[in-house]
């Protein structure tokens, strides 16, 4: 076990991927000499060269569009979108091309592209730097979407995503970048397309992913003082969803609370709640609760503590569920 930040864990995972496969290339704005604005790619250009770790022009659509072309020569591009709110110029290439080419070609063409996106709020950032667009990719057929929540998953999931022959949108919770955790460099890693119970409990199930995993774990710890034993499930993969552990959990606890930063309407929580309703109808003792960002553009950062789900709102939802 080695203790490191999520930034370092991603960096070490990317380094291993570059070492393992000469066809892996990294592209993005400021990822070379600067090492990325978050330093996720620090030192990689120095060690692997400007051909494999490329500072690109300032053009997100071009970053993803050229990554598509690289796949036709057998490369496995890993592209960095500098901030969540900057992905939209590339949205057309992602949705109309990356997501569809395998299907259009009846499987003849593969798109082993990883699109890394630092996402989410909580860091006091300016506009366009705190968004949670994961559902916009998760609802796009042909894309897979995952989100790591801690350094160990960051280290392993990035390598697994790069190894995948399908395109993966890799959501990195930037507010957790600098938090440290134990990374098991020897492995084995958990399967990429799997959810995981990160805290077992009996009284209610918190279903979450990415930046909110830690918030939910903190909530569960706080609830212990009230004698409540909360289970926390980290979805890890957002598309496809792995809901088997969620269904099993909710059948035991009878209560489910879904937590994410993204807006409520048509967020991941809507799909999770629907599936729980389908699979756990006779076990549910209360309607599935959602604790989410509100349906508004991301607000000025001095209001984000009110906008983002926090411990109190999560525990209030648990109380509402249990009192139903």
């Amino acid at each position, binding site marked *: 076990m080695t203790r490191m930040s999520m930034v370092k864990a991603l960096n070490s995972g990317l380094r291993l991927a570059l070492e393992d496969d000469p066809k892996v290339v990294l592209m993005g704005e400021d990822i070379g000499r*600067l090492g990325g604005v978050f330093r996720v790619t620090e030192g990689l250009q120095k060690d692997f060269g400007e051909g494999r770790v490329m500072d690109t022009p300032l*053009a997100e659509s071009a970053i993803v569009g050229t990554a598509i072309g690289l796949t036709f020569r057998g490369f496995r591009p890993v592209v960095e979108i500098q901030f969540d709110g900057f992905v939209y110029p590339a949205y057309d290439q992602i949705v109309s091309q990356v997501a569809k080419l395998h299907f259009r070609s009846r499987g003849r063409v593969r798109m082993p592209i990883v699109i890394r996106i630092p996402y989410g709020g909580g860091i006091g950032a300016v506009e366009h730097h705190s968004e949670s667009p994961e559902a916009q990719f998760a609802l796009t057929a042909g894309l897979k979407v995952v989100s790591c929540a801690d350094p160990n998953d960051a280290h392993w999931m990035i390598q697994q995503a790069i190894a995948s022959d399908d395109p993966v949108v890799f959501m990195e919770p930037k507010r957790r970048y600098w938090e440290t955790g134990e990374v098991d460099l020897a492995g084995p890693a958990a399967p990429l397309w799997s959810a995981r119970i990160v805290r077992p409990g009996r009284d209610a199930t918190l279903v979450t992913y990415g930046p909110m995993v830690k918030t939910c774990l903190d909530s569960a710890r706080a609830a212990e003082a009230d004698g409540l034993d909360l289970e926390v499930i980290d979805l890890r993969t957002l598309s496809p969803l792995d809901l088997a552990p969620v269904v099993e959990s909710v059948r035991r606890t009878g209560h489910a609370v879904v937590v994410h930063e993204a807006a409520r309407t048509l967020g991941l929580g809507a799909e999770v709640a629907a599936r729980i309703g389908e699979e756990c109808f006779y076990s549910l003792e209360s309607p599935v609760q959602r604790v989410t960002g509100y349906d*508004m553009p991301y607000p*000025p950062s*001095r209001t984000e503590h*009110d906008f983002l789900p926090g411990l109190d709102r999560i525990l209030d939802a648990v109380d509402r569920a249990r009192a139903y």
Partner: protein
Amino acid sequence: MNSSTAPTPDAPLVQLLTPTGQRVTDPHVAFDGDRSEIEALYRDLVMTRRVDTEAYALQRHGELGLWPPALGQEAAQVGSARALRAHDFAFPTYRDHGVAWCRGVDPSLLLGIFRGSDLGGWDPADHGIALPNIIIGAQTLHATGYAMGLALEGLVGSGDPDRDSAVIAYFGDGATSQGDVSEALDWAAVHQSPVVFFCENNQYAISVPVASQTRVPIVQRAAGFGLPGVRVDGNDVLACLAVTRAALQRARDGEGPTLIEAVTYRMGAHTTSDDPSRYRDASEVDAWQAKDPLERVRLLLVAEGTSDDFFADLAADADALGVHLRAACQQIPEPDLAELFDHVFVESTVENRQQQAEHVAWRDAMEGSVVAS
């Protein structure tokens, strides 16, 4: 990318005032203002720099979350913005503090975005300047659309100086790589729209030098799209004013768009979160320090006999502006999430109202619990 890919640096450059304060002539463009106009420009430069250094200090003191310094780019911003008339319009980037100053925006209104208190502090219609855009290059299309609107409304080429109008779009060297910017140049040229594209080429997009964005000087893009291009010393406020004035007049006269490349330098970091020592040499910064946009104007004014009192009064005004900014920053009202629900739509929705009520009830309950404890 490395320096061997650098674009040819020898495209003609309009300069009317050298770094040592000497007036020089250009075959195509002249600055015909008198000393008082130069003094007014110098005042804008000094005040813009004070806004910038004061905001930078406020960030360092924790009053702002972030600040993108305009240091070194004051002449490009002031010269171009002072070429605008009151009924013209500007679409700025997040770094164009000097443009906002020249449009009469109280500089304290620039701070809210970077304090996290608001997403833009003024009504664009009040000052003829849109809210700063953080999405790189997007505003060039907005300016093009605005220009189309002017043309549709018959506000171009009438010959009436109180009626004819134009618009200016600000963007950086990095933005020229974005598709939006190429689309704007193309569209405006096709429609002969009354828009001036003012590129502040400050040599860097965060860490990436302009040589990694383009093989040719940015000004040469213009020819391919079919509009005139002018390259100007972006640290020369007289030249920036003169070329922008001419380009805006062309636009107002119905003769179409112009691309201006103002060659300048970002003396500071990309933002206060950036560390430029990781990607550029101090010697490069020193070389540009010698081309400071303020010092050359000061030298000119001293040589032309501007009084010591002018400089003393200006220094006092700048100090007063600093005091104003420091005080105003701390008086920016704390934003209220509950109120922000009112601004998601013109015509609110049931869901919007429900979420607002939910938030208000929650907030009130929490305040009650804080009081109770």
